């Protein structure tokens, strides 16, 4: 191996030259005219959110813009898809050019807060007491609040009324897993497809599994408990017996919904955000809460974005940022956000009352959000992401037949323990 030495020398040399050139470039090059990436200009505030589907002309963009106007500044909004947003935020944090405001998916709040990138809400005097405790929990880390929910959503079971009528199933009869199972069997006997859900190997897979996991009485701190095995066995049996399609293993929530819209499925586990789409489907639809194993309503995980404020070198900027945040979270503001997003349930009691006055039909969803549970709560914080990864991996293994539910969860518990250092 005498050749590589030549290469090594070349690469060491290369690195040195680059370091030099970067230094000189740093000293001499003026800021590019069109380089608007940094939050520098005086009257403009940068805002990142995970809604690329809402472009500059959308109601959402206008709403963000008007909150900037009220605070006397212009807002430069940039939309990323959810996964890219966290990475981009970390990169920007490292380079010291984080935006003034980031709307983050709630499990990411702990991660960025733990990285020291976010300013606690208390530091610039924002009152967080008026937000529902179960919703804001996901924004808390070590007793400090790093973000406030601009709204919340959660999961329930949508059903196709036409199929249920034909199969003779009364949705009100679904009280626990046994009665749900009976309903699914009836639908199957009537020749329709019973249920679809998303078991994809991502956070979405865990999100969709949690109502069943919690509904069986399992805890995220113990992934291989008998209750957890029961929940995973339920899903596994559904896939094995054809009650649920095999493709759930690779289905995202969007795909699941597209399947439901074909009118071939009796039930679909999906979220608040599909209310409009369900109303426009070619068939009548309805919603039931996801039942707990032995009755009652299962706790569902809360979803939805949090407003966070990345640490700025120039702390004078916080005063304006505070005004923008307040504008977004007044009861009226929350209702407006809620309707813009079809639908977000407001995260304060005032907001919930106002939106119900406008849209009484949202009552089951408001109830669901009130009884929902944050994924990072139970003081899991930054332990949640690795636990969740272990959980969705177990779901994938069991559903694809690579391991039995019990074995898959046992491996998951070991994986989670290793990752969280316990």
């Amino acid at each position, binding site marked *: 191996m005498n*050749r*590589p030495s*030549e*290469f090594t*020398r*070349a*690469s060491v040399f*290369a690195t040195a030259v680059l370091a030099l050139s*970067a230094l000189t*470039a*740093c000293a001499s*090059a*003026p*800021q*590019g*005219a*069109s*380089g*608007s*990436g*940094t939050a520098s200009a005086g009257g403009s505030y*940068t805002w990142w959110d*995970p*809604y*690329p*589907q809402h*472009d500059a002309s959308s109601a959402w963009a206008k709403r963000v813009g008007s909150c900037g106007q009220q605070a006397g500044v212009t807002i*430069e909004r*940039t*939309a*990323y*898809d*959810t996964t*890219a947003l966290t990475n*981009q935020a970390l*990169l920007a944090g490292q*380079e010291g*050019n984080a935006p003034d405001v980031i709307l983050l998916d709630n499990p990411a709040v702990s991660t960025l807060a733990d990285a020291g990138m976010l300013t606690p809400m208390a530091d610039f005097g924002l009152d967080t007491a008026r937000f529902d405790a179960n919703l804001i929990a996901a924004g808390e880390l070590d007793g400090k609040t790093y973000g406030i929910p601009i709204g919340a959503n959660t999961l329930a079971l949508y059903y196709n009324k036409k199929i249920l009528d034909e199969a003779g199933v009364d949705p009100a009869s679904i009280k626990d897993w046994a009665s749900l199972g009976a309903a699914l069997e009836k639908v199957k006997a009537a020749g329709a497809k019973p249920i679809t859900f998303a078991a994809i190997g991502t956070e979405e897979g865990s999100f969709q599994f949690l109502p069943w996991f919690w509904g069986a009485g399992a805890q995220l701190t113990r992934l291989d408990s008998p209750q957890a095995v029961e929940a995973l066995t339920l899903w596994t049996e559904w896939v094995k017996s054809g009650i649920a399609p095999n493709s759930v293993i690779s289905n995202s*929530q*969007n*795909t699941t*919904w*597209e*399947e439901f*819209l*074909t*009118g*071939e499925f009796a039930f679909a586990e999906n*979220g608040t*955000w*599909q209310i409009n*789409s369900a109303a426009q*489907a*070619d068939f009548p639809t309805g919603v039931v809460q996801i039942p707990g194993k032995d009755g009652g309503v299962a706790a569902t995980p809360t979803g939805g974005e949090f407003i966070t404020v990345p640490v700025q070198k120039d702390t004078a900027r916080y005063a304006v940022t505070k005004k923008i945040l307040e504008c977004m979270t007044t009861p009226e503001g929350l209702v407006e956000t809620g309707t813009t997003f079809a639908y977000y349930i407001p995260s304060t009691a005032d907001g919930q009352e106002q939106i119900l006055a406008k849209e009484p039909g949202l009552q089951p969803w408001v109830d669901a959000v009130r009884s929902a549970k944050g994924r990072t709560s139970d003081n899991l914080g930054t332990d949640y992401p690795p636990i969740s990864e272990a959980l969705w991996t177990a779901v994938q293994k069991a559903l694809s037949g690579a391991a039995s539910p019990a074995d898959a969860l046992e491996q998951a518990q070991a994986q989670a323990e290793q990752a969280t250092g316990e």
Partner: protein
Amino acid sequence: MRAWKTAVGVVLVGVMLFPVYWMVNVSLTKTSDMRADPPHWFPWDPTFEGYAAALGQQLPALATSLFIGLGAVALTLAVSLPAGFALARLRPRGARAIDFLLLVAQMIPAVVMAMGFYAIYIRLGLLNTVAGLIVADSTLAVPFAVLLFRAFMASIPGEVMAAAQIDGASTWRTFRSIVLPLSRNSVITVSLFAFLWAWSDFIFASTLNRNSDVIPITLGIFRYIGNNTTQWNSIMATAVVASLPAAFLLVLAQRYIAAGVTAGAVKD
């Protein structure tokens, strides 16, 4: 005999392009039919919403992508043609080291490259500029281009070069008047790839050009992928619309190769 070959060619293209047909099919399908079981072979009940969205919203992004693609081609050729020539013909010192560097360079994961560019660009003020994206996209093709030019230029018969030397032509003139014209095929091949790689780049664009007003088409598509809904027909329609100008360029390039071949034959 020849008609038979054409028929086989058509069948082969049909098989190869079936996924493309499927994409067109989806672009015309209504959301409620998209996941039907069994799937619809043909969009009997088409919707043109996707095309309306694509044509109404994506044309500027399309132009940006074309410009970036052509810019990346120009930069790639400017860097790699002389280098390929030197490596193939001039026996420079450290040629092997450069070979290795080129190979290793291509192995650096795209994400790591993007993070590196981000760090460099933020200092140079090149974030969110088209020029910055052109430079970044050219890194997808340059190592490949150098290696390919090297392989092709090495196969130019030594006699042709020697004759030029005897004529007293300078190395630059030999390169310009003899090697370049003889390398037309490989230049077109490289241009094609450089263009296509820049055209389909997503990682650089998403890391380096997010806040920009001018975005390439691969980023444009992302406006149809929401958190909670995916507008598949718009995505597929955008892909169809976007591939048309590029397909046109391809056909032009093919003509050019064909023309080159005929011109050569006439010369003899």
